[in-house]
């Protein structure tokens, strides 16, 4: 993946259309909510609950693309479209990869937020 962690153009446009201060708050909200979404993804996988799994991946995809976190969005999108895997271990691995990318995106967003 050669996409940047955060697509600056998307982020700047968001600031321009809704205000930098508002975007700061929105980033905070996202960081608060995303932890829950990741947990939901894991628990839906453990419960074998396809609907919840898809919805959690869907939410992550939508929100990360809002801030221009394109890599994260792409990983979440893969999970959303694929749904629960017949082989749970593959999902667990994908979720782990998603969490790594989330940490990167979250750090980048925090930097932007304070920058």
């Amino acid at each position, binding site marked *: 993946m050669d996409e940047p962690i955060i697509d600056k153009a998307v982020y700047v446009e968001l600031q321009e259309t*809704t*205000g930098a201060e508002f975007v700061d*708050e929105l980033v905070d909200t996202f960081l608060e*909510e995303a932890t829950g979404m990741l947990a939901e993804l894991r628990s839906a996988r453990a419960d074998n609950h396809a609907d919840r799994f898809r*919805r959690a991946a869907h939410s992550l995809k*939508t*929100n990360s693309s809002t801030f221009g976190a394109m890599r994260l969005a792409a990983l979440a999108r893969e999970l959303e479209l694929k749904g629960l895997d017949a082989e749970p271990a593959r999902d667990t691995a994908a979720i782990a990869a998603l969490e790594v990318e989330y940490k990167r995106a979250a750090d980048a967003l925090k930097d932007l937020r304070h920058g």
Partner: protein
Amino acid sequence: MADAAARVLVVDDNKVNRLLLSRNVQMQGHRAELAENGRAALDMLRRELFDLLLLDIEMPEMDGFAVLEQLKADPQLRDLPVIVTSSLEGLENIVRCIGLGAEDYLHKPVNAVLLKARIGASLEKKRLRDQQKELVRRFATSEVAQDLQRSGFALGGKRVHASVMFSDIRGFTALVESQSPEDTIELLNTYYTLMFDAISGHGGVVNQMVGDGLMALFGAPLPLEGCADSAVAAALEMIELIEQFNLERAGTKKPSIRVGIGIATGDVVAGYTGTQQRATYTCIGDTVNLAARLEEHTKVAGRAILIDVETKRALGDRVRAETLGAVPLKGKSAAVEIFAVDIGRPA
């Protein structure tokens, strides 16, 4: 007016989306209310008035598709404009939303400029639609308005069984000359309020008002069981209300008024007549002409309510009516048997 603040309901299960969409709405000068799922949204829509709905599709409890279905089935909410904002993929989802009545479908993340344009356009369309509905409401009866909404507008009629009533104020011309135009307008407004009340209270529909005269239909545009009974009951109540009105007028030394009512029952052709540009809902046929002649004849007969033989037959013995025999009426080749309804006092 398109720029006036509107009330927009933002429905999304995701907090970031809710905040972002409502921010966009507010920056456009509108007010945003929030709901977290389809069920909560429907509750709010049924409780309060909104101008526009921004609807997410993928939601727990009740998803956006179900909301669209419910809105479509609800006569009160059917016309509420809905813009779907979703990141659901697949053309079939978009097609499904549009098929269920959504005005538009915007992909998330929603482009703020596009959203602004869509909100503006939807609100403008709603404003025009509201204006049109208001016009129809003011110039047609709610029954006609509903009939129009249900089946659309088409010139032409259908044959229905109905009772037709004509009514006017006796000696109205002399009355108009004896008082100020302002007094006349006030009198007419009170008179019409009373008459409408009596007529619609018995399932009738006033479809024409000319000066002091009105025409009412019982059995069209919607069928009415026992239309003759309803028409006569309405007529008796009209006479009763006029009596009360006269008592009030006597208190302020104003002359009393008297009305004459003619009712005929039978098949009529009901529908829209006129042109594509200007049309009116009415009934035509012998029954209509007969009712009009009966009303005119009340002056000659000195009776308040005259009915035809079909109306009399439908009433049976439920209402006391005296036969006045066969009477020649204008426009009728043969004499017509008419009856005077007993109003319990001299007319």
